[in-house]
C-alpha cells in the first residue's frame, strides 16, 4: 500500500482553482519534495492531504484512509510541522513533548521513555527545563520535528521546516529527516531552498495549481537540461 495516493485531486475556491487535478503517488519511506512558487497551490494540496480541507473533486488516500470520509483516522497516522506554528513558546521543552504526546494518546510511561530518547538524540538534556522561547531557532525546529514524529506516524508533512535556519543547523535538520526516512517514515516536505530539493528522493513541481514535473532530481535535471534544481525550477516557472 502506498502511503499517499491522489487521483485528479482538485480544490476550487469560488471560480479560482487552487489545485487542479493533481495525480501522484508517494512510496513508503520516500522523501518526497513538494515544490512550487508562492501561490502555486502547495499549501492547499497539503491541507487536503492532512484532512484539514475537503477537496472539491478527485480522490486521495493517505495512509490508506480516504480524505473525504476518514479525516480523523488520517490525523492519527500523520505528523505535521510547519514553519509558522511549531511549539508553545511559553511552555518548557519537556512540557511541550508531554503535551503533544498526550494529544496523540500516548501513555505516561511511553511519553517519559520517548522524552528521554528524544532529548538524548538532540543532545538537549540540559535544556529540558528551559522555555522553548529561550532556544535558538534551529533547535526549536529540530525539536518541533522530533515532536511531530513522537507518536510514530507513518507519514510526516513538513511545511517549509527550515526557513531562515542557519546552514549548519539546516543540515542537521535534514539528518533527522534522513534518519526518520531510514526507519520507514514517509516524508512529504515543501521548501524554498533548491539545494534541499536535491536531498529528496523525488520531487514534484507545481505551477498554477498543476504538477508540471515529477521525478528524481537527477532525471529532472536531465529532462530540462539544467545544471541545478534552481535552473529546473526557473525554466518551469518562467516557461508559462
Amino acid at each position: 500500500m502506498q502511503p499517499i495516493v491522489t487521483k485528479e485531486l482538485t480544490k476550487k475556491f469560488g471560480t479560482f482553482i487552487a489545485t487542479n487535478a493533481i495525480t501522484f503517488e508517494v512510496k513508503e519511506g520516500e522523501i518526497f519534495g513538494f515544490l512550487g512558487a508562492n501561490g502555486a497551490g502547495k499549501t492547499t494540496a497539503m491541507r487536503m492531504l492532512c484532512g484539514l480541507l475537503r477537496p472539491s473533486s478527485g480522490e486521495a488516500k493517505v495512509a490508506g484512509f480516504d480524505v473525504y470520509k476518514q479525516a480523523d483516522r488520517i490525523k492519527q497516522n500523520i505528523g505535521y510541522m510547519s514553519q509558522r506554528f511549531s511549539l508553545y513558546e511559553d511552555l518548557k521543552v519537556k512540557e511541550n513533548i508531554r503535551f503533544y504526546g498526550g494529544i496523540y494518546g500516548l501513555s505516561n510511561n511511553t511519553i517519559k521513555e520517548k522524552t528521554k530518547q528524544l532529548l538524548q538524540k538532540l543532545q538537549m538534556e540540559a535544556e529540558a527545563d528551559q522555555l522553548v522561547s529561550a532556544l535558538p531557532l534551529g533547535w526549536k525546529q529540530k525539536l518541533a520535528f522530533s515532536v511531530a514524529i513522537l507518536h510514530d506516524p507513518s507519514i510526516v508533512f513538513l511545511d517549509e521546516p527550515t526557513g531562515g535556519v542557519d546552514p549548519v543547523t539546516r543540515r542537521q535538520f535534514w539528518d533527522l529527516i534522513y534518519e526518520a526516512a531510514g526507519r520507514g517514515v514517509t516524508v512529504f516536505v515543501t521548501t524554498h531552498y533548491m539545494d534541499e530539493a536535491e536531498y529528496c528522493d523525488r520531487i514534484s513541481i507545481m505551477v498554477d495549481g498543476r504538477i508540471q514535473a515529477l521525478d528524481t532530481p537527477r532525471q529532472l535535471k536531465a529532462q530540462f537540461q539544467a545544471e541545478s534544481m534552481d535552473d529546473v525550477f526557473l525554466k518551469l516557472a518562467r516557461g508559462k
Partner: protein
Amino acid sequence: MKTPIVVQDVHKSFGKVKALHDISFTVNEGELFGLIGPDGAGKSTLFRILTTLLLADKGQATVNGLDVVKDYKAIRKIVGYMPGRFSLYQDLTVQENLDFFATIFNTTVAANYELIEEIYVQIAPFKDRPAGKLSGGMKQKLALCCALVHKPVVLFLDEPTTGVDPVSRKEFWEMLQRLRKKGIAILVSTPYMDEAMLCDRVALIQNGSLLEIDTPQHIIAQNNKPMWAVRAKRMYPLIQDLRSFPETESCYAFGEYLHLTLKHGEADLDKLHAYLQPKGHEEFSMHPIQAGIEDCFMELMKSEKV
C-alpha cells in the same frame, strides 16, 4: 558625497541577550552590501539602529554623514526602509498603498516615476487589488516600490526575499542590481547564502558578531582547503560512513552531493578510499571542487564557536 553607511563598534543587548556585539563596517556609494546570516543573528536589530528606530548601547553609526541618534529626523527623510515582515496595508489596494507612502514622504508617485517604473509596470496590472491578495513575490515588489517612491539616498531592505519562491527572488535581485547602478546604496539582509554572490560585498553575521566582511569572491578565494563533492546512490548511509571516518573534518549535504573536507587534505585521500571500499556504496563518485560561499560561512561559523 558622504559615505552612505558607517557603523563603528556598535553594541546592543536586550536584557541578557547580546543582539549585536562590536559591529563595524562601511557601505560605499552605489554599493550593494549584503548582511548574510540566519534568523536571530541580529540583522533586524542592526537595521533598526540604522533606521533610527532603536538606540545602540554603545558605538556610533552614520547614514549619509548624519548621526543616527542626533540627526534622526534628517535621516528619516532620506532613507527607504523595508522591514523584515511584509509591512503594507493588506486592505488597501496596490495603488492606494503607493499613493499613501508617496504622500507621507511628501512626494508623488509621478515625481519619481522614472525610478520605480520598471518595477511598477510589473505590478500595475494588479493595481486595484488589495495588497493582501497579492502573491508573495508581488508583495515584495510592491513593498520595494513603496520604499523607493521618495527616491531615497540609502535603501535598507531587511530580508526582502524570505519565504519568496526562487523565481521571484531572482527577479527581485535583478531589480536591486539595476537600482545600484542608479547610485543608490543598498544594505540588504538575507538568510539565503546563494544570494550573497549577487552582492558587491557581504558581511557574514552569526550570533550578533560579524564573522567576515569582504567581497564574496574574496571570501571564497581565501578558503583554500581542498574540498570534494561526493555522492552515491544511497546518500544517508554515505553521510554516516563519511562522518565516522576518523580523518573527516566536515561532511555536509549540498544539493545532490556531499561536501567533504579532510583533516590533512589530499594526504588522507588514499586512506579514505581504503575505508570506503568495503562499504560497497553503489554509483560512488568523487571529484574535487571549489568551496562556495555557504561552505565558507559554515567553516567560519565553526571556527567562531571554537
